[in-house]
């Protein structure tokens, strides 16, 4: 029998972990001379107070949905993909090639090419570590970290020596042509007559992210391949006994993971910046780890956790503008969420399990004294 009801595992534990993280963050704010209540008010107002605020929150959330899904798909095969950042950077290169070199008549065609190329570039960047893990036994965590650094250097090289327009000093590509610009929320909601701030960066990529959530759910829980991935993640030996090839599962899970991380750049490079700059991913690949842990590797959980982190990111930006709290406060909060939901999970879980066992024992003991013992 399960030690705990499912709702406690899915809702209660993340909530307690989040509260612990929030508590320590509040202490950090207090220690640096800020009022945590006031800070929370600024964050809520700045991230959810207006349609413009929502536009920023959902824009960041879109990034985190992609990277969160990426980490969680790999997690299902018990692969820890820390390389989302590098894969997203390379995905940006894919988007840049898709947008700069073809005269697209309409954005709807450009976005298909951008999705395909960014996914391909991200997938390739994940496939090499996956291959080394599957065939040579190189630890995927170390290789994906190394590939992040190599990706930084490679992007730097591509921007400085290949894609930089002649005469420009800045390491960035030219702006993408107007025909490739994605519609933002104001354009999309305007069709239905709903007003939305036109200067907010949330764009069509959010819709793609929602579709990606659904497709990942379909893949993991409704297909044979998804079943194989989960079986492999639960027990490698049992899976191989059932005729599931380890190499195949590692490769496929990591390729899907890398493709998802790469597609993030449809949002930040194509939808928002409309050109490729250095460090375009801005750490979103790493936030994906926190999002996947928080969301329990389920697409719905990832969606909610991504919106939560979008709120944190946008709220933190407002906090740095209005209260002189450095933007890095968000990184602190993010690290605490990773620590409590990921590494210190047992600290929250085992006392709760004991509580639930005790609660269950009591009604049983009331019926027949011997059974409960």
């Amino acid at each position: 029998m399960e030690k705990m009801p499912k709702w406690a595992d899915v809702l209660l534990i993340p909530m307690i972990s989040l509260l612990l993280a929030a508590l320590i963050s509040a202490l950090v704010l207090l220690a640096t001379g800020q009022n945590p209540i006031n800070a929370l008010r600024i964050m809520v107002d700045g991230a959810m107070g207006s349609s413009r605020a929502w536009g920023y929150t959902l824009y960041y959330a879109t990034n985190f949905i992609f990277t969160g899904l990426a980490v969680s798909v790999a997690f299902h095969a018990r692969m820890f993909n820390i390389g989302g950042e590098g894969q997203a950077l390379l995905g940006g290169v894919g988007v840049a090639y898709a947008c700069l070199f073809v005269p697209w008549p309409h954005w709807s065609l450009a976005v298909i090419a951008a999705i395909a190329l960014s996914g391909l570039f991200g997938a390739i960047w994940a496939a090499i570590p996956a291959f080394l893990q599957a065939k040579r036994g190189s630890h995927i965590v170390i290789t994906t970290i190394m590939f992040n650094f190599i990706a930084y250097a490679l992007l730097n090289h591509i921007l400085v020596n290949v894609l930089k327009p002649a005469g420009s000093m800045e390491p960035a590509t030219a702006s993408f042509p107007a025909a490739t610009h994605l519609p933002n929320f104001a354009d999309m909601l305007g069709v239905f007559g709903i007003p939305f701030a036109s200067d907010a960066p949330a764009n069509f990529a959010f819709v793609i992210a929602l579709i990606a959530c659904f497709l990942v759910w379909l893949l993991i829980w409704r297909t044979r391949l998804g079943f194989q991935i989960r079986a492999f993640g639960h027990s490698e030996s049992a899976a191989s006994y059932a005729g599931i090839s380890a190499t195949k599962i590692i490769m496929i899970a990591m390729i899907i993971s890398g493709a998802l991380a790469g597609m993030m750049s449809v949002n930040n490079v194509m939808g928002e910046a409309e050109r490729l700059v250095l460090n375009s991913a801005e750490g979103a690949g790493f936030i994906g780890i926190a999002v996947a842990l928080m969301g329990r590797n389920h697409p719905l959980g990832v969606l909610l956790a991504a919106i939560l982190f979008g709120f944190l990111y946008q709220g933190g930006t407002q906090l740095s503008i209005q209260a002189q709290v450095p933007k890095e406060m968000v990184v602190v909060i993010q690290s605490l969420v990773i620590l409590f939901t990921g590494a210190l999970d047992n600290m929250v879980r085992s006392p709760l399990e004991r509580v639930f066992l005790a609660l269950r024992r009591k009604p049983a003991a009331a019926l027949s004294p011997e059974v409960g013992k």
Partner: protein
Amino acid sequence: MDIFALFDISILGGTIRMATPLLLACLAGLFSERAGIFDIGLEGKMLAAAFVAAAVAAVTGNAWLGLFAAILGSVMLSLVHGLASITFRGNQLISGVAINFFASGITVVVAQAVFQQGSRTPQLSGAARFDPIIWPGALTKIREISQASLPMKIYSQLISGHAIIVYMALLLVPLSWWILYRTRFGLRLRAVGENPAAVDTAGISVIRMRYAAILIAGVLCGIAGAYMSTALQAGFTREMTAGRGYIALAALIFAKWRPWYALMATLLFGYLQALALRPDILERAINLRVQVQLLDAMPYILTVIILAGFVGKAIPPRAGGEPYVKER
């Protein structure tokens, strides 16, 4: 074409300076991983220590106080890692990732709150820094050095003229070797990383051994961080460790978890870093413009090649990354 320019004494001197933090962090990882605890958090511990050292040195004007505070700060993060990965048997990789982010964020937040100079500490000078130690008779003026004989050049630029932490780090290599391979403590530490159940059966506490290992790692990362901000540079700047913790991890694999090999691996990576700072010398040496980006990426590319097993096989400690459960 002047291939000998690659072995310019000033580059080799720079190699030693760049290799020192890598070596200290690498030895830290060595103790931790030999006891079966993966430590992705070397980077974060170094960064936190660099900040604490610079902050305390700036306030007190004493580099040694900075060093001790840095060790204390780094050890505290080690204890968080121990709590998560030893006591609560959590995922060691995730714990390390969390520590890296925590350090990356908290150093900037606290630096801004305390010093209000845009996420940096004030410039350190005088006793707040570890100055280079000039050995007796060593030359210091650039003009005198350029005219000196080769042994004198080596003595003045390679042997003399480093901060005390550099010499400490070099001495730590034989010391680590001796502890790991010639003491009872070292034998137990290595055994805990290979087969904790056997160590437990012998009546030795696995948990205590592993905590001892991560505490040593904390101390070493603390020294490494203090070196970054109070000896190599004069103060803390945002993200100043710049991935050195990861390069140290790479060096650890390169070194196959052995102290003397760790020295060689970190010297190699330190050399690449020193060379990346002087693209002019490289260009003179091989008559070819090498992309700086390629040099930056070199340690990581080398590590991937090593990991792939194309140059010898690196076999990690067998029980690495597995939390020890006493009984099932």
